[in-house]
């Protein structure tokens, strides 16, 4: 059977890159939300939760407003790279970040907050700076839960449909991710391709979930 595996490969690449971005930015935001009190913390908390409840098409619309060819960001991008950002696989990465980062921030924040405060207090009385405390104490103690959160974010990034189709479109061989390809395959009556991709994605998601649950169970047992 001649099956096009490109969408799966593209999705993996997009999800990996977006997870990397989500992890770096998400950990920082989770740290801010978990440890600092500042003005607008509640607003920030609401803003990072919003993508979880908004329809993906709404997110896609906002993203288009920000990175579209008419926006200042879109123009700057085009001026530097010579081509628009929308309807490229890079735009799909942004879509996946928007779709998956909120989940990561929520779980990472819970993981950071679940670390016994006495360890953090102890580190402070021992002269540790906030950075050293975070890197040497809080992060290692929460590492399993955070790794689980990263896994879930990857799985979610892998499965984005709505935001991706709004900003990256459905260009076979260029921006067609696996979720979009399955839709396409079903629409065009290509049942075999749809089934193969559906099974592949399901197996991967299941594997990630199993891993994440094991990580969290072992964290809880510590």
């Amino acid at each position, binding site marked *: 059977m001649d099956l096009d595996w490109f969408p799966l490969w593209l999705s993996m690449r997009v999800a990996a890159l977006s997870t990397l971005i989500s992890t770096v930015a998400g950990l920082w935001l989770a740290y801010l939300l978990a440890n600092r009190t500042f003005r607008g913390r509640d607003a920030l908390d609401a803003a990072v939760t919003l993508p979880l409840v908004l329809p993906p098409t709404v997110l896609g619309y906002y993203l288009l407003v920000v990175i579209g060819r008419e926006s200042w960001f879109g123009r700057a991008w085009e001026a530097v790279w010579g081509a628009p950002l929308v309807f490229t696989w890079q735009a799909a990465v942004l879509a996946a970040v928007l779709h998956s980062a909120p989940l990561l921030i929520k779980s990472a924040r819970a993981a950071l907050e679940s670390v*016994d405060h*006495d*360890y953090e*207090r*102890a*580190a*402070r*009385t*021992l*002269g*540790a*700076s906030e950075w*050293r405390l975070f890197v*040497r*104490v809080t992060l*290692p*103690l929460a590492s399993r839960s955070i790794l689980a959160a990263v896994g879930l974010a990857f799985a979610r990034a892998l499965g984005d449909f709505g935001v991706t189709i709004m900003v990256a479109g459905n260009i076979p061989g260029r921006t067609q991710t696996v979720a979009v390809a399955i839709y396409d395959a079903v629409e065009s009556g290509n049942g075999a391709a749809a089934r193969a991709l559906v099974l592949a994605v399901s197996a991967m998601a299941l594997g990630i979930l199993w891993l994440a649950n094991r990580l969290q169970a072992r964290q809880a047992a*510590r």
Partner: protein
Amino acid sequence: MISVRIQKQFAAAPGSAAFTLDLEFTAGAGVTVLFGPSGSGKTLTLECIAGFLRPGAGRIELDGRLLFDGASGVCLPPRERQCGYVFQNYALFPHMSLRANLGFAAERLPRLERHRKVQEMLERFHLEDVAGRFPHELSGGQRQRGSVARALLAAPRMVLLDEPARGLDAPLREELHEVIREVREGFQLPVVLVTHDLEECFALGDHMHVVRDGRIVQSGTPESIVEQPASLDVARLLGVYDLFPAEVRSLDPGARTSRLRMGEHELSAPYLPGKFKGDHVWVYVLPERVKAAPREGQRAGANQIPATLARTIELPRGIRLEFTNGLRAEVPREEFAAMASTREWLIEIPPGELRAL
């Protein structure tokens, strides 16, 4: 040398009433004990000193360095305060070996010196054999010593201990007391210890503050406080006395004596300065200083009260007799065995042991 003056208001919250912390004390080298019931503000005081909690007003000074000053807004973060803190659960980092835990406290030092200091401290607290183990592989005593050693490695100017003996069995408690004495003798630091265990105050305390409802209600050596509690409140908090209401019948300043009426009995007591005839007072006696003997038909003599035995309680070192009139006495086990069937007793309170508030 630390001097502490803190005020902080806590608004009423679900499950806790409004509470005001308002206390002041100084502590030099040696062990200073904050003694009081749970919820009296002892731990909050430690948290204010360590910098986990910001007082509303006041001033905290350690060796002439200002840690907190409400008036000028100075409030150093915990890591700049140089206060070692030993947590109730020891708070050894579970993902690091004991050696790494100690190393964490000495990271400001160059590598070689750090290694030497850590080794020195491990040896001092008899931990060199278990240095490679993780906290969950250590015994309770080793965890305890490890956490004290770690606190000391950060070169603190004082050590704060938050109920370190809570939940420990007797041998571990004894071991902990040894460790704290080692800190007192070997490091010449002010040590502030929070406890609600009076025996611990006696075992360790050079000085003691009785804390109640966020205030210090009495200060002194543990011995002097038990000899002379400042108020009925303190006497009740110490929990070691029998307390009875009584009426002053007569006072003789010349002979330094007084007569007190308790129920239908009149007893001799030392002179009560500041009291007048007819005053109602609270009498306190230590049960272990009360004498009890079978009555065997005798009449009550001086400072003796006839009483009927209500029940007996086994104590580690003897038998506690409780009488129907509320008095208690302690007698040695062998002595009691010979008179276990006696119901009617004569209780004698030596005049010197009868104090009043």
